[in-house]
């Protein structure tokens, strides 16, 4: 078992190396040197979740992002009073919740484990600490985060445009059928 106590005492080498490799593949840590990845790895908090356990709840203040080491997390948004929409499923080597790293605001969706999962979390206080001790590294991470969020905004805008076109078409066909009904 990996546990900060034993980590602290024995400084397990192999687990750390595996983790650094995993971090290297994440777009948030693009362009980080190996030494910088080691610094990030030391900051991370390991959390274990049982199947069905909630990682965070929609509407509650968020504090950071999670990287999936193993298992699977589903991101769910409440729609209306009783309906839930599954926005995404996050698997091994992916991450979620990164918006909370930049701003203190309520979680826009909830997250829960679909099976037993191991996550590594990086939180706002950790990022603040990195920026106090190693501003260059913090700058790289924040630039990556901004890039990812901009890309997502572009995608969201495209979706919005598509939806708008569909809506216009629907409205037009509705009007046609109404006109046909009146005649």
């Amino acid at each position: 078992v990996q546990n900060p106590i034993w980590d602290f005492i024995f400084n397990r080498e192999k687990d750390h190396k595996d983790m650094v490799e995993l971090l290297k593949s994440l777009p948030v840590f693009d362009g980080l040197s190996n030494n910088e990845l080691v610094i990030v790895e030391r900051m991370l908090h390991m959390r274990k979740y049982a199947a069905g356990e909630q990682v965070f709840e929609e509407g509650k203040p968020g504090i950071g992002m999670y990287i999936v080491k193993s298992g699977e997390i589903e991101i769910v948004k409440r729609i209306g009073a009783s309906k839930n929409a599954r926005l995404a499923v996050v698997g091994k080597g992916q991450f979620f919740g990164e918006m909370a790293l930049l701003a203190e605001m309520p979680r826009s969706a909830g997250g829960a484990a679909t099976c037993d999962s191991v996550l590594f979390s990086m939180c706002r206080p950790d990022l603040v600490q990195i920026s106090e001790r190693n501003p260059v590294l913090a700058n790289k991470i924040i630039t990556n985060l901004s890039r990812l969020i901009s890309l997502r905004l572009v995608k969201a805008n495209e979706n919005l445009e598509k939806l708008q076109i569909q809506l216009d078409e629907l409205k037009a066909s509705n009007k046609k059928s109404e006109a046909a009904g009146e005649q």
Partner: protein
Amino acid sequence: VNSEHKSSHFLIKTLYYALVTAVIAGVLYCVYLFAVPFIASILCVFILGPVVNYFEVKGMKRLQIIIVIYALIAVSLTGAVFFLGPPLARQMRTIISDLPEYAEIITNTVSGIQTFAEKKFPQAAIPDLNQILRSRMPSKGGLNVDSVIAWSSSLFSVLSVIFLVPVVTFFLLADGHMVEKLLLSMVPNRYFEMVFMLFDKITGAVKLFLRGQFIDAGAVGVLTTIGLTAIGLPYAIVIGLVAGFGNLIPYLGPIIGFVPAFFVIIATGSFSVFMLIKVIAVFVLVQTVEGIFIYPIAVGKSVNLHPLVVIVGVTVGGQIAGIPGMLFAIPVISVLKVSVEVLYSGLKSYSII
């Protein structure tokens, strides 16, 4: 079968919680035993932490910076013992040996006031002020260095502070984040985000407050000492120390520094209106400089305790722990106030309260 299963779970759960409670109790007992060196180390970490971070940004290794800082502190402490020690010890020694003499001067002054009052108001029953005063004053030889040391602390606590504080501070500075991580790893998933956020906000606010107070008090102490030395008042270092510590108490701080200065003017027999004006001028100047230049930068947004809270706090602190209690009542109350405020808004945002 199912209920049997459940009951065995219950037993294991109970045992687990009993064990956890025992561990927490043990840790709390250790914290109680080492409260003074532990709190002192945390204070040192709060003050030295930014310095270490500053040089880490410049590209130095954390461990090297800490070792250099320790070496510098050792050198400056040795320097302080050599240069500041003898005058401070001399001032302390003369205060203690001259105390009976000063008492004489003060009782004479009081007698003067009493005869004056009795002449003016013959029908008022004025109690014998001198008798009251004498019963509270140290007799000749009653106050010596030995009794002062015995009163202030036992040998053990002095040694534990001297040895533990540097060691604990060293490890917290070097590996503080690991300790924080370890504590957070014990928090259940459900509360992880909330506890981390509250912990971060509370330590952040407390850090800022304590760092500001420390810088502010130090500046007032040094400025007062310099000012009083410049006008030639005896015991300037001792009064500077009192003024610095007194500065921890809002509203009353400036008065706390002025009272011993006033007594020194009277008791050393150097009383003159000119001297009094000079001393007042020094205190006003120090307070002005502190108010305009130091306080806004060091402390910034103040904790804003109501004056009534300050008065009650200082009184209760004095009742609980004497003079140290009076000095540290306001910092403790401020820290508690900040913590409760953060806790309240935090728990509210997680809709727990």
